[in-house]
C-alpha cells in the first residue's frame, strides 16, 4: 500500500537541543500508528512538523504524495491536526472555529450538517455558541479532535487526544478514528496512555531522545510482558 505520510531523515533542532534526530517514518493509508515514549522523546515535535506548524531543520516530508516543505498549503489541505495543548482561539466559539475551517478549507455547502453531527457526537452541541475560553480542559481536547477530523482529512494527527477527556469523549474520539480509517485516512496518535494507544492503533513506534527505538504491532506492548518491554525501551 502506498505511503500517505513519508518522512525521511527528519531532524528538528532548537539551538543545541536536538528534538528529532534524523529518523524515517512511513504510514500507509488506512494505517493507525501510535507514537509513544517519554516526555521530550520528540513525539509532539514530529507531529508539529507533519502538520506544517514547525519546519524541520533537515529531512523531507511527504503528505499524500505532496512535498510538504515545497507545497505547504497543498499538504495542509490533506491534514487534520489536534495539538497537544490548547489549539483553540480563546474568544471564538466552536461554531466560529468550524465556520472558519469550512471557509479556509473551501468545504462544500453541507459542512453545517457534518459540523452539527460531530458537535453532537462529542457532546459539544449545547456549548457550540460559547467562547472556548470558558471550556474545561477535557472539553477543549474534544473540540480540538473534532476540528482535526472535521474535513475528513487523509492524514489525521492527534497529539494527546485522550488527556483529561472523560470516557464518553474517549469513545467519540475512538469512533472518529475508526470512521476515518475506514475511509482510507492514515492516523497518527501520540499519547502517554498506552492502553488507549493500543486500543486506537494497530502499530506503535517507540521514540526515545528523538530517535525511533522500536516499531512493532501495538498489541505487543500490552500485558505484563509488553509493559516490561515498553519500560525497557524507554530506559535502556
Amino acid at each position, binding site marked *: 500500500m502506498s505511503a500517505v505520510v513519508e518522512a525521511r531523515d527528519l531532524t528538528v533542532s532548537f539551538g543545541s537541543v536536538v528534538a528529532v534526530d534524523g529518523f524515517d517514518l512511513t504510514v500507509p493509508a488506512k494505517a493507525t500508528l501510535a507514537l509513544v515514549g517519554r516526555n521530550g522523546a520528540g513525539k509532539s515535535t514530529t507531529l*508539529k512538523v507533519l*502538520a*506544517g*506548524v*514547525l*519546519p524541520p531543520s533537515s529531512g523531507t516530508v511527504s503528505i499524500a504524495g505532496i512535498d510538504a516543505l515545497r507545497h*505547504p*498549503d*497543498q499538504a*495542509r*489541505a490533506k*491534514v*487534520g*491536526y489536534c*495539538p*497537544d*495543548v*490548547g*489549539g*483553540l*482561539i*480563546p*474568544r*471564538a*466559539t466552536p*461554531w*466560529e*472555529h468550524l*465556520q*472558519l*475551517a469550512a*471557509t*479556509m*478549507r473551501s468545504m462544500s455547502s453541507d459542512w453545517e450538517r457534518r459540523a452539527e453531527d460531530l458537535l453532537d457526537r462529542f457532546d459539544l452541541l449545547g*456549548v457550540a*455558541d*460559547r*467562547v*472556548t*475560553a*470558558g471550556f474545561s480542559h477535557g472539553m477543549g481536547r474534544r473540540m*480540538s479532535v473534532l*476540528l482535526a477530523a472535521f474535513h475528513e482529512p487523509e492524514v489525521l494527527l492527534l497529539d494527546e487526544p485522550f488527556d483529561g477527556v472523560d470516557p464518553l469523549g474517549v469513545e467519540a474520539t475512538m469512533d472518529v478514528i475508526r470512521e476515518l480509517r475506514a475511509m482510507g485516512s492514515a492516523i497518527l496518535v501520540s499519547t502517554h496512555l498506552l492502553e488507549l494507544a493500543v486500543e486506537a492503533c494497530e502499530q506503535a513506534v517507540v521514540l526515545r531522545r528523538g530517535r525511533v527505538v522500536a516499531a512493532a504491532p501495538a498489541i505487543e506492548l500490552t500485558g505484563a510482558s509488553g509493559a516490561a518491554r515498553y519500560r525497557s525501551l524507554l530506559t535502556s
Partner: protein
Amino acid sequence: MSDSANIPATRQLMALLQLRWRMIRSTPIRWAIALLTILPVGLVIAGLLSMQTLPDDETLSLAVATPTFYVGFIVLAILAPLVSGGGYELYPPDQLVAYPIRPATAYRGTLVLAPVNLAWLINVIALFVVTGFATGDLAWVPTSRSLVTVALFILAATVVGHTIGWLVMGFRQSRRGRVVTNIGGVLALVAGFFIFWTDSVITLLDNSPTTRVVVGAYDGYNGEYTSWLTVVAVLVLVVVVFMRFGDAVAGWALRRPGDHADRTSSRSLPRRTMSRNATFALLMVDHASVWRSTPLRRGVLVLVLVPGVISALAGMTWQSLILVPGLIAAGAGLLFGINAFTLDSTGSVWLSTLPGWVSPAYLAKSLVFLEIALAAVLSALVGGSLRAQPPNAASEVMAAFMSALCCAVLVVALGMRSSLRHPHRADLKGPRDTPATPGVMAAQSMRFALVTTFTSLYFAALALSGVWWLPLFGALPVLLLSALHWYRTGLAWEHPHVRAAVVMTVSGG
C-alpha cells in the same frame, strides 16, 4: 515548614523584580533598560538648565499655570490605572499561581510599573521642570527642597490613583458594582461637560488644592520651613495612608468571588454569517477576539472616546491639533499591536495548519490594528475640530488629517514588525493583562512616541507653509516608507521559521 505567607510584601516584590531582571538574558537590553531608568533624571536636569534662558515674564506665566499641570497629573494618575484595572502587572497572574504572592505585593508591583506608562513619565518630567523653573533661579539646596515636594506629590497622586483603580476593579467584579461604576463614569463625564460648557474651569483651578502644593514647593525654595514642612507632612501622610489602604483594597478586590471580567465565556453568542473570503473570515474572528476581551474592549473605548472628548472640550488651535494624533496613535499601538498575533493565543497552532492562512492572517491582523489606530486618531481630530478656533490656513487642516493618517499607518507598520520580533504569550483576558512584558511595553511606547512625535512635528512644519497641498504631498513619503516597512515584515512572516517562532510563542506551545 516555611512560613512564606508572612514574608513582607516589599520583600516579595524585590524577589519578583530580581527575577524579572534575571529573565532579561541580553546584556544590551539590560544596559538599555538601565539607561532608560536614568534618562528621565537627565531630561529633568537638561530641562531645568535650558529653561534658565527663558525671559522673566515667562516665569510668571508658568508659575500661574503650574497648579493646572498638577491637576492634569492627578487626572492622569487616576485614569491610567482605572483603564488598566489597577495598573500594569510584573507577571501575568497565572504564572504566579503556585506561589503565595500577597495581594499587597501585586498592588505595589503595579505602583512600581507606573513609569511604564509614557504619558505618566512625560508628565512627571514636565512637573519637575516646570516647578523647578517657576520657583526661581537654580540653586542646589533650595531647588532640591522644592523638587522634594514635587516628588512627594507625584508619589501621592500615583498611590491614590492606583488605589482608586484597584477599588473600582474590585467593585466591577459584581453586576451591581459594574452598574454603579458605569453610572459614576457617566456622571463624571457629564460633570466634565458641565464644567467646560459653563466656563467654570478657571474658577475651579483657582480653588484647586494643588495650588497649596505648589505654594509649598515655593516655600521650600524660599526657606519658609513651617509652611513647606506642613505640605511635605500632609503628602507623606497621604502616601502612607493610601499605601496601607491600597494593600487592603487589593486584598479585598482579589478575594472577591467575581466573574473576573470574563462574562462572555458563560453565555451563548448569536451566530453570524462568515465571509467565504479567507481574509474577511479571519478579520471577523480577530474583531471578536478584540471585542470579547475585557482589557481590549475597554482600551479601544477609552482610546476612541476619551481623546475625542478631551480634544472637543479643550478648544485647541489647529496647530496644536496636528500634534495630537501622534500621542494617540502611540497609545493605540500598545493596546495589542506590538504583539498582534497574541489575539489568536493558543489557537494560533491550529490556525497555522489551515491552508491559505499565512498571508490573510498577516493582512487581517494589520487591518484590525489599523482600524483601531485610525478610529482613535480620527476621533481625537474630529472631536477637537468641533470647538477648535478657526484655522489660520487650509494647510493646517490638511496637515492635521495627514498627521493622523501617517501616525496610524506608521504605528501599524512598526507594531507588526514588533509582533514578529518580540512575540509574547498573553491571554488578554484579565483586567490588568498586557500584550507584552513591562520592559517591551516601555521600550515600544518610547519608540512609538518618538517616531509619531517627529511625524507630527514634520506636519506642523509643513502647515506653516500655508500651502494646502504641501502636507498632502508630504504624507506620500511617510506612507510609502511605512508601506515598505510593513511589506518587508510581511515577507519575513512568510518565512516558516519566523512564523513558527511566533506561533509557538504566542500559543505557549
